[in-house]
């Protein structure tokens, strides 16, 4: 091979390795980007997730009272309990206790009351979905320790015992003519991953 051919081949090799280096670099960058996209998509899914521990329907209404049927559900959507109550008043409130637990929130349906009775005189809900001391609306943890901790929280909720200081309640309710619950319509109580509670038509 003469000197000219050798130089040509060397130039080609330089081009080849440069292209290979660039391709390797952009492949690595694209791979990191893909990982970041997967992570962001997972975050969006997590933020938009919801759990539905209970649904309710106002079966009957009179000018000064209402009959309510409440059903409770596990995370798979299976019914785990129900309760019927007759309340005085015109506007129904569903009170849910939100308790921080291991970086997330656990929601415990707590009581239902109305606009005309004090919350403390409302109808308690925990007994309707407690199974062997464990809230059936909460996914059953795999570890015994976690199960014992949630059971302990649930007992505190059911008995009015002390809860972690960051716990709070959220009584979601209808508002007169602006956002009244229709008789016979099923509503679901939706708990968001960041602790928010919503009422949405089913």
């Amino acid at each position, binding site marked *: *091979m003469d000197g000219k*051919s050798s130089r*040509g*081949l060397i130039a*080609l*090799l330089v*081009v*080849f390795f440069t*292209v*290979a280096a*660039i*391709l390797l670099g*952009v*492949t690595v*960058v*694209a791979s990191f*980007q*893909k990982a*970041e*996209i997967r992570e*962001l*998509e997972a*975050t*969006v899914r997590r*933020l*938009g997730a919801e759990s539905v521990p209970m649904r309710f329907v106002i079966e009957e209404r009179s000018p000064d009272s209402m009959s309510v049927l409440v059903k409770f559900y596990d995370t798979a959507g299976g019914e785990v309990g129900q309760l019927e109550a007759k309340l005085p*008043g015109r*506007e129904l*409130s569903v009170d849910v206790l*939100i308790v921080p637990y291991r970086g997330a929130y656990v929601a415990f349906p707590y009581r239902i*009351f*109305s*606009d*005309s*009775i*004090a*919350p*403390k005189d409302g109808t308690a809900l925990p007994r309707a979905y407690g199974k062997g001391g464990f809230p059936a609306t909460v996914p059953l943890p795999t570890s015994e320790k976690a199960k014992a901790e949630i059971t302990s929280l649930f007992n505190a909720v059911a008995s009015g015992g002390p809860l972690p200081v*960051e*716990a*709070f*309640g*959220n*009584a*979601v*309710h*209808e*508002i007169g003519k*602006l*956002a009244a619950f229709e008789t016979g319509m099923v509503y679901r109580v*939706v708990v*968001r*991953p*960041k*602790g*928010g*509670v*919503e*009422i*949405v038509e089913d």
Partner: protein
Amino acid sequence: MHAERFKTILYAFADALELLTMTPVGLALLAGIIGSAFVLSVWNGVRERSLACEAAGKKLGIGEGTFVMFRELAAILGKIFTAGPVLLAVALGGVAVLGVADSLRKFDEIEADRKRIKELSAVVRNLDRRYRIAELRALARKDGRTKLSLAFYGGGSEEVARTQELEIAGTDIFLDAIVCNFDYSEIETGKRINLALPYRVFSDEVAQDSGIALELFDAKGVPYAYRRPSGEIYGIGPEDYDRRLEELSVIMEDNDASRQNGLVRSLYGSAVHRIMKPGDTFTVWVEQTGGLVIKDPRGF
């Protein structure tokens, strides 16, 4: 435009090369071409020798034919070996073309992914946001009554829009608000933010009906919590404020229409509550994933 045309030609060439060298069909095709060339070359050599034998009045024997065949094969291999550097250059050139095409494609992919990351980051940012609505402070408790100081914030502002003091029987204090959660598509794109308008305080001992109404509107009928601030603060300009007020009043006037349009996901009352003793403070936020929460500002 020229760059795009160049890319189109380069991609077409690279695709053809890739097909020939990296797919079973392409490799079979290539092997077929090379094999045919070999066979043709050998057959041609043998045929020439056979014709020469015929001209000399004799017949090409099996042994001689085999020898000619191997000689032709050796000649072809020799040519390949001699042309080695050229073939190597062609192979390297082909791989380089493939590499350049792949690199350019990856650059396009990186640019598309960069846009996607930007969009998703904005979605996460918009969904992850929360806005301070009110802050409650228990000032004192006497004879089963709790004295409270309330500060209201509005429309994403961190400035207190109004304060109010009140006293109520009970210790579990409920701050009641009208909450409007918009459809996720509206929140994700940042077109709208979920709204909350506090309007009443009641307690575990005081029914909602007997609760204390908050001073909701100013003299012009604008909710205090959403009164326009002076100038632009925290990125919330006067136009945004006006738009949010308009949205809220439209939704409150015609809730059904807003739901049917798919604009509003849920509209309801939400009374967040916590047991308070003197000195306790809690802050109420509206989460953009939906709903009201009580959280310590440092607890995020």
